[in-house]
């Protein structure tokens, strides 16, 4: 009894409160997205997504209870086991699974379809936390860094093999966690520079871009070589310049030769969304029209014409934010984004108050994974990011996604509830 009381007192109710708001608001939005005046289904109707989502919401209390009951040290102890199990499941998916909208990601379990990649995120987070928290771990050691990259690289490769590049990209966000735990920022900066060059390649003619970059690097190199007599710095500048040109050319090659046509058109859509409103740009242009037509205060619950008319494809899943934008307007978007940012900052706050490194690293993993999903998902619905099919946590329709994110978050809350016991250790 004492222990139970302890949990109730120690658990972070603010986070749970935010979680509940997001989940319930998400549920209402799913109803709005699938609702149709002509057949007037109830929100509880199990034949539509909102009814099923309610079951998933109810079902998510099972893992919540299980997580709360199981001893908090269990996650540390079994981190690698979880990781191993999900890797096996990802392998099984590759062998068994069938096609669902281009990506092979499902395992049928009776009537349910399980998507292991949604759980792999939590498992990888535990494995990363366990690794970094081990007493022998030093971020400075290349060997340790390599181990971390291997941990996040394995699921990435397996998920890419499932043809689900969007979900695979999530693992890149672990770099931010590594950065927080002491990794040199150079890798992050290099990543950001590569991303910037990638975008520039899309918008600017390659010839100009390579000439400008190469010329700039050459000028800087000459400056250091001749004026400052620092030959070494000049060589570095030339090296950076050459790498940047290579990135540009590589990007071009990557987009035109490596990417599949549907991925290429998604990127082209980002550059010029109006170019192909009926084809590749259909998702984004309709999503933007729905959101943009919401105005300042929105059209009201179930009153969104674009939402009700089904103009935005996959609106209850990946494009759920279009519903908020249309029916609640800018004000609703402000509240929604505000709630999310509050949740993210709260999670970082929780992570930072952990004395146990395992819990802190895990907390950062949770914050970063949620942040990545939030940023990419909303970014794509408003045309700031290419269309990458990843869900908006807690909002998007989908059992695996909701259960996965719920488990991810509540494991942290469980660890946090016991943070004072950890002191003893």
């Amino acid at each position: 009894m004492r222990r139970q009381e302890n949990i109730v007192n120690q658990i972070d109710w603010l986070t749970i409160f935010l979680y509940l708001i997001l989940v319930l608001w998400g549920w209402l939005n799913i109803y709005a997205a699938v609702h149709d005046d002509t057949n007037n289904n109830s929100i509880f109707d199990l034949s539509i997504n909102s009814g099923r989502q309610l079951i998933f919401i109810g079902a998510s209390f099972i893992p919540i209870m299980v997580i709360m009951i199981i001893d908090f040290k269990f996650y540390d102890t079994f981190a690698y086991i979880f990781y191993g199990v999900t890797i096996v499941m990802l392998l099984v998916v590759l062998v068994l699974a069938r096609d669902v909208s281009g990506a092979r990601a499902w395992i049928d379990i009776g009537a349910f379809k399980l998507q292991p990649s949604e759980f792999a995120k939590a498992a990888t987070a535990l494995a990363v936390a366990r690794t970094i928290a081990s007493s022998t771990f030093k971020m400075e050691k290349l060997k340790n860094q390599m181990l971390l990259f291997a941990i996040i690289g394995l699921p990435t490769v397996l998920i890419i093999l499932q043809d689900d590049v969007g979900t695979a990209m999530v693992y890149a966000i672990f770099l931010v966690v590594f950065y927080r735990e002491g990794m040199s920022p150079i890798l992050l900066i290099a990543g950001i520079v590569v991303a910037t060059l990638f975008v520039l390649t899309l918008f600017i003619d390659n010839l100009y871009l390579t000439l400008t970059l190469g010329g700039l690097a050459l000028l800087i190199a000459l400056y250091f070589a001749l004026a400052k007599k620092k030959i070494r710095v000049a060589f570095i500048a030339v090296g950076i310049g050459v790498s940047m040109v290579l990135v540009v050319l590589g990007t071009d090659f990557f987009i035109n030769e490596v990417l599949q046509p549907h991925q290429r058109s998604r990127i082209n859509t980002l550059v010029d969304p109006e170019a192909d409103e009926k084809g590749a740009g259909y998702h984004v242009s309709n999503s933007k029209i729905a959101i943009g037509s919401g105005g300042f205060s929105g059209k009201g619950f179930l009153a969104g014409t674009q939402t009700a008319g089904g103009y935005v494809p996959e609106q209850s899943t990946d494009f759920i934010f279009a519903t908020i934008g249309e029916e609640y307007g800018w004000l609703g978007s402000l509240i929604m984004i505000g709630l999310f940012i509050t949740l993210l900052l709260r999670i970082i706050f929780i992570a930072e108050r952990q004395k146990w490194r395992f819990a802190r690293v895990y907390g950062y993993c949770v914050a970063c994974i949620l942040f990545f999903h939030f940023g990419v998902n909303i970014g794509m619905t408003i045309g700031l990011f290419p269309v990458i099919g990843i869900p908006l946590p807690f909002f998007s329709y989908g059992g695996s996604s909701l259960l996965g994110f719920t488990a991810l978050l509540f494991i942290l809350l469980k660890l946090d509830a016991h943070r004072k016991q950890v002191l003893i250790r």
Partner: protein
Amino acid sequence: MNGRRLIIQTAMILVGIVFLGKLFAIQVADSKYAYKAERISRRKVIEYPHRGLIFDRNNQLLVHNNPQYDLLVVPRNVRNLDTTRFCSLFEITREEFNKKMRSFRSYPYRPHTFLTKISHQRFAEIQDFLVDFEGFSVTARTVRAYPHPVMANAFGYISEISQEQLTADKASEKYYQQGDHLGQSGIERFYEEELRGKRGVSYKIKNAKEVVIGAYENGKYDTLAIPGQNLISTIDIDLQLYAEKLMAGKVGSVVAIEPSTGEILCMVSAPSYDPNLLTGKNYSDNFLEISNDTLKPFFNRPLMAMYPPGSMFKTIQALIAMQEGVLRPNEQIYCDGTLIGDHAPNGYYDVRKGIKLSSNNYFFKVFKRIIQQGEDPSPFIDSRSGLRKWKNYIDAFGLGRAPNIDLPSAKAGNIPGVADYDKIYGENRWKFSNIYSLSIGQGEVLVTPIQMANLGAILANRGHYYDPHIIKSIGESGEAKQAYLQKHEVGIDAVHFESVIDGMEEVVQAGSGLRAKVPNIAICGKTSTVENPHGYDHSGFMAFAPKDNPQIAIAVYVENAGWGGRAAASIAGLIIEKYINGEVSRKWIEDFAIKGEFIY
């Protein structure tokens, strides 16, 4: 490590701010998306109201609406189509079918019009097979239909609004839209507003598959369609059909008016066409054919054909002279054929005999008395004031101006006045001797058949008339149009009419209008043989009957049919007999009129 925490937190907040900024730009600052959303998801649905029907004075249906069908196709829903069977059923070739389907390819979820104007009969034939053609459906529209194929010019026709009409409407009422149909002539045009009603507009929200899923803004901007009003015509369709039968194969007009009300009982414009030709599928072809006809069936003769009135005009001359006090009804005036060519014998004439025998010389003298009253020693100045007085009377008879009739395009005719002769001869350089042909209704004077029918009504009423009109009442209330209850006096005392009317009675009993004589009806009439420089003279006859309590006034013109006493008098007599007795006993006259060989 606190710095790194801060960087991470800042990055998260920054992303949120960037999103809110972008959202502000597309949601609040830019109205383009709201406009696009409306364009995509809103559908304007127009409900065309039922166009008003037209009945005759005895509530017989004259004009009604017939359903007509358009075949629609939603290309995406077309499945397992037996194209060969489809093409043979709808009488199109495989190439036409493919061409049409190809043109719809861009919007496969949207309904497209595949065929238009499928008639009711044709629809009945294919209706049962439609279920076999998945993806195809029909919508009904209505077109005008006429149980009796007559009165085409009076009813007028309906067609799609022209660009000019659209532009004019944009500047005034702002009711019509591209593709709307409206009355272009006749009753359809004059009573367009009453007949059309008011169309309803509703805004619907449609989904991505073009299916309507609800009302836009709960129907806040929707309006209900108001059906058009029915019209009760003054026409007696049985009389009309009889008159049409008599006028078949001839060129000319018949107008019959009820003198006590001004209601038009029948109105024939010959040659005419079947009004059903200008409804439905073959509108364009038929329209072209009718407009190219050398006999001009679109020319609405009763209102638009202008002829010199001829001898009918003598009735007015006698009345004016008596009202002016320059002629007494029994005054005996000696006339011989010296002043003007004449068919009447030499001898003494009074008003009655002058009308009966249509003496040109008598009316030459009568008109001279009106024009030259001796008020001024100069015959030029005297003629000026005389003509001015005369014209005032003529104006009161409704001549020289378009009748106030509820049909478009009625012509004014022409009554020359002082200014006209000044223009021809110069001021004070003309006198009676220049204008004497007016005395017998020739010269510069022009009238239309409806004006002469109205003259018949004025004579029947002994000095007043009501504006001739073709619609008795509008809508449910059944009230008459106020304007048509207005009595117009012509300014001639009733007493002066008797000698003229007696003369007109004798025209029919024993004069040139003998062929109009009906044994038990006292018909008063006057023939006209309208001089025609281009061919045979036009035959004209104006009459009313019975002499006491007149029920009908009529004017008949038959072009190129010679003497007024033959074609026109026969037809007028038959119509009067038909109207008053309900049947025609004089079959030989009927045969004569229908046969139409008036020149011998």
